[in-house]
């Protein structure tokens, strides 16, 4: 068996994210492994999950307290090199997705992302053409960075073990992280941990039975539902494009909400699509939504072609008004 390193990072608060425990769970199915953690409070975080690891290393301090390419790349390179591993498993968070491909290039290796499974022979499973086909593949290049997609495995239970050896890290960078911008808690509409994804399509902005558009009411129905039920909000591309073109439609929707070919591929147990036609470029973003229901006026829309579990042929305005009374 090749030497494997499980490379993790902490959050800004110094804890391991759920994706870290999922990656560790994948590694535990493959045999023995080394462990390394970078980020704020990395040594303590490493020790909290180090049971069974062949070696434990960490890099912490101001340089890696925040997510930044230049510093993360140096730290990850140092940890990977010190472990002697040829295969490095890491969570496919945006922090590592930014830094680790460059580290692979530095070490003349390779990097694969969005991996949803790893077989015992180190074959990996990942998606191509935006979740439209799945490949099983392997590589000869080493070191090989394999980034495990969040949600692809159940997280393991944290088992503390040996203390981490803390390595130094010094690097000059021209980049300073200023902070984060996020909506207020009561305005938040993207919730990765929500059970339900509510997706709005362009039909909300079209003329209704009375020949008029009702975008104010549409916005109110959607936001009330999302805020009240703490669901995550997604959008079809056509709807956010309307907003980007300066039209005053559902202004709370941005490209961050876009689900599909050129948007995100969220993971939620349930998804409810409204006023969206379920065409392939949009539905590829639903690949990891388990239970799917849709509301659309057109019984022949794309959702009817084996993509949704239930298609309600109905007026979404009327259904959502009624639903607001019930929830």
């Amino acid at each position, binding site marked *: 068996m090749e030497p494997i390193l499980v490379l993790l990072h902490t959050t800004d608060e110094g804890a391991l994210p759920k994706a870290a425990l999922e990656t560790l769970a994948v590694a535990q199915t493959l045999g023995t492994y080394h462990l390394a953690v970078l980020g704020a409070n990395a040594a303590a975080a490493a020790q909290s999950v180090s049971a069974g690891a062949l070696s434990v290393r960490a890099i912490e301090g101001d340089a890696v307290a925040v*997510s930044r390419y*230049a510093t993360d790349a140096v730290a990850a390179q140092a940890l990977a090199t010190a472990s002697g591993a040829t295969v490095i498993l890491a969570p496919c968070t*945006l922090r590592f*997705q*930014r*830094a680790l*491909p*460059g580290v*692979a*290039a530095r070490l003349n290796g*390779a*990097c*694969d*992302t*969005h991996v949803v499974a790893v077989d015992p022979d180190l074959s990996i499973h990942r*998606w*191509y*053409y*935006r*979740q*439209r*086909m*799945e*490949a*099983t*593949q*392997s590589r*000869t290049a080493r070191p090989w960075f394999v980034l495990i997609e969040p949600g692809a495995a159940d997280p393991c239970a944290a088992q503390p073990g040996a203390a981490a050896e803390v390595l130094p890290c010094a690097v000059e*960078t*021209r*980049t300073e*992280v*200023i*902070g984060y*911008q996020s909506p207020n808690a009561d305005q*938040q509409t993207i919730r*990765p941990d929500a059970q339900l994804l509510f997706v709005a399509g362009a039909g909300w902005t079209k003329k209704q039975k009375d020949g008029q558009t009702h975008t104010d009411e549409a916005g109110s129905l959607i936001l009330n539902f999302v805020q009240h039920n703490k669901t995550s909000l997604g959008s079809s591309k056509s709807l956010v494009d309307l907003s*980007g073109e300066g039209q005053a439609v559902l202004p709370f929707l941005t*490209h*961050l909400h*876009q689900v599909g*070919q*050129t948007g995100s591929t969220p993971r939620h147990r*349930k998804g*409810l699509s409204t006023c969206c036609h379920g*065409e392939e470029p949009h539905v590829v973003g639903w690949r990891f939504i388990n*239970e799917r*229901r849709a*509301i659309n006026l057109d019984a022949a829309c794309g*959702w009817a*072609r*084996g*993509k949704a*579990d*239930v298609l*309600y042929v*109905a007026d979404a305005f009327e259904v959502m*008004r009624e639903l607001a009374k*019930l*929830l």
Partner: protein
Amino acid sequence: MPYQIIVCGGLAPDPLQTLEPVTTPAGPGLKNELMLPAVFDPWAGHALYEAANLAKNVPGSVIKVVSIAPKAKLQQVMMTVAQKLPFELVPLDGPGGGFTDSASVATALADAIAAIPGLDKSQMLLFGGWESATRGAGVVMQMVGEKLGITEQFLAVDELKVDESGALIIKERVEGGRHQVSKCAAPPAVLAWATGNLPEPSNHPQTGMANMRAMMPALQKAKAAALTSTLSYASVALPAVTRQTKIVKDVPAAQIAQELADWIKQ
């Protein structure tokens, strides 16, 4: 100081096309791949529109698009893209599908960029899509940056502003619908773009004609990109799951709402 903006971008099958994997002597590919209509990769397109916006605001800036694709297909796609904004094309003739090895593609792109005559790396901004609509790995831009020695890199960028000191203020997507805001003192830098916020520029036939006058000779002289691979594919398949869709019609909205409420509460 004007920027030298390099935009890396490949081609992708038109998103509305049905895709089916097939095995070819060179590995996996798409059925009728050469016949499928192609578009400029959507994320790379966003990077290109952002480049155009930056170049418009910083006079003297130039844009060069570096692309690996079958050159006949690249020529077809450029007939459309070239109408949107002025840029110079640096084409590489090679396979453009999603099953090419990202590391090899990055090496070919980096070599092509390094060979651009008169490139001032101190003023270079390397743009590209965060991921492609083909391989969808999100690794090529970082690898190209590393091979060119650029260690200030940003992924999933939605906004770039230049402050009065010339520093780059960059918003990157992070988990949970948030943006991380960073300040990079100066170029060079790699920016792998998400969607940004700019609409697609409208077509200007005169810009297209001016662009194509330089592009056609460049396409004729396009060097072959010799891609290698450390990848081997055991299988490539379409997902097998097709749902048995239950269609509910002619049912009162209140009844549908009750059914949905029960489902949501489960």
